[in-house]
């Protein structure tokens, strides 16, 4: 009897409000049934719903697995030379993708190349990112002579094509013909466009009310830069990082092709494999196609991820479900 009484009361639609006790059995009542999401969750969700970006991510992860887990599965060291299997075409027993002129396995080469190229990218980002962020932030935040000084400096370096600057600098250091050296040189000159991007963002952000508020509360310059402004430029920073990573891979390949990149003995990278393969395009096409395809796929995947992230941060020009 008591239960029927209770049901009739709820059918009536209104529960008497009891102070101190939440309605509807404890949950916080909401007007809508949609869960509230923070901005970060929205961005992450948008990215995961973006087909292009996810395709890139999946391909990239597969490549990572290929480059880093592949050698464990295959168990072949790229440096091993086999004088009985020189320039064998793909499909020969033990050489799935063929071998090069001194009998090294091409598949193992590509795996190592992927590793080395990613190492170069990592090094490049680790050097260029803080440099560009710092220069751009200082120029954009302080303005006036700091801005003029730093940005004119950037302009000056950019009066010469980046590839040529890299060539001239690399020609000074014959010892830098390793993935380590190339990564460092790329990093030291790769931050210029990031500095410009960060500066232009800071120029508009520093006029915002929340910066004024932070000033009024007595926040120091460094606190405003690191706690307020940089988090607000995060979108551009991440996008730059991905796109610059792709550029770094192609730049490395170009440098290596011209003879100023990874050219030392026993050194390898995807760029090195591709450059070596170009000479063999008609005679031993497997040396030309497979490394080239690996390089294209890796650059393509990174670019797709970058675009997906850009759309996730700024969905205004894309119809993606959030």
């Amino acid at each position, binding site marked *: 009897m008591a239960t029927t009484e209770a049901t009739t009361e709820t059918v009536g639609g209104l529960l008497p409000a009891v102070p101190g006790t939440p309605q509807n059995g404890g949950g916080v009542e909401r007007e809508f049934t949609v869960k509230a999401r923070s901005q970060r969750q929205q961005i992450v969700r948008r990215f995961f719903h973006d087909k292009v970006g996810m395709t890139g991510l999946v391909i990239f992860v597969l490549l990572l697995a290929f480059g880093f887990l592949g050698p464990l599965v295959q168990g072949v060291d790229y440096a091993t030379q086999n004088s009985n299997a020189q320039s064998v075409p793909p499909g020969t027993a033990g050489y799935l993708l063929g071998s090069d002129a001194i009998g090294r396995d091409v598949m193992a080469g590509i795996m190592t190349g992927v590793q080395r190229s990613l190492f170069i990218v990592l090094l490049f980002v680790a050097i260029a990112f803080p440099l560009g962020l710092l220069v751009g932030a200082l120029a954009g935040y302080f303005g006036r002579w700091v801005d003029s000084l730093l940005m004119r400096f950037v302009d000056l370096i950019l009066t010469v094509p980046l590839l040529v600057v890299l060539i*001239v*600098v690399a020609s000074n250091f014959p010892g830098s013909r390793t993935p380590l050296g190339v990564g460092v040189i790329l990093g030291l000159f790769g931050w210029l466009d990031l500095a410009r991007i960060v500066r232009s963002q800071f120029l508009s952000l520093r006029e915002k009310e929340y910066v004024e508020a932070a000033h009024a509360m007595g926040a120091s310059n460094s606190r405003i830069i690191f706690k307020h402004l940089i988090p607000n430029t995060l979108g551009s920073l991440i996008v730059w990082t991905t796109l610059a990573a792709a550029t770094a891979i192609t730049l490395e390949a*170009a440098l290596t092709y011209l003879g100023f990149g990874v050219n030392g003995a026993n050194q390898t990278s995807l760029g090195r494999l591709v450059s070596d393969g*170009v000479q063999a395009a008609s005679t031993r096409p497997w040396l030309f196609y497979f490394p080239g395809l690996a390089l294209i796929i890796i*650059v393509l995947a990174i670019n797709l991820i970058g675009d997906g992230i850009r759309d996730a941060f700024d969905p205004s020009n894309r119809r993606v479900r959030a």
Partner: protein
Amino acid sequence: MFFFTIRRILASVLVLLVSSFLVFALAAASFDPLSKYYTRNPRPPQSFFDNLREQLGLNDNFFVRYWHWLSGALTGDFGKTINGSSVSQQLGTRIMVTGRMIIAAVILAVLLAIVVGVIGAVRQYRPSDYAFTFLVYLLIALPTFWFAALLKEFVAGGINDLLGSQVLYTIGEETPGLSLYASGWELWSDRLGHLILPTVSLAMLSFAAWSRFQRAAMLDVLGSDYMRLARAKGLTYRRTVVKHGLRNALIPLTTVVALGIGTLFGGAVITETVFVWHGMGEYLLKSGIGQNDINVVLGWLLVSAVFVVVFNLIADILYAVLDPRIRLA
């Protein structure tokens, strides 16, 4: 507008001056004109080096050297190569060779970028848009020299087989020695046959990024109020897109292209290497860096800096002409 232009020109000259100083410092620190004698066997005596240093002015103060070089460069004299010939003369012929390729490539790339970008924007999310987008992404990911090798391998071979004679050449900017006796149509048709592949290779890779800019700019414009107004006035769709949309959407592209021409100099280095052109790229790599020839490298860097600065200037002025709002800023 007049004062705007004057101000920009003055600023560019200043940038160029400082840039020439930076370039000189970089080159002076990097290259030693005497290095080819160090490895000679037997090694020349020390007095030989001392004499040569004195003769080339290497013992002078850095700023004095810079001044000597700069005053020469301003009057069009870039000094001598280590083999004794004039750098200015060699640079002149090299620029003509590279210039042919770059001008042709830029024209081709701009046309392609506009067509592909506009189609992508007008037919957004249609199959043609997706196809072009995929193609463009692929082109952006391609390493220049790999793509060029692909062209040499398939396009050149295929077309020559098809026509039954060698129309496309894969090496050099003209048949060696032809310019000594041939002239007029024979010479230029030969040069055209050599020009096509490098141009296509260079154009394909630069147009890819530009078409994305054009597509984004066009999308921006298509959504604007004045386009809706133009339609509401009763203009046809085609007319609004071409007269009202495209003209405004071209503004961002002019800047990007003008800035890109400077960068093309860098890209041309690789393309020239693949197609064995005796242009600026080869000059820098072989005659300059390869032989430690400081005057060659300096001349090259200065010429490329002039190009970049001049095209930056053109971009600025064009932007102000096309978009009057910018003049006020």
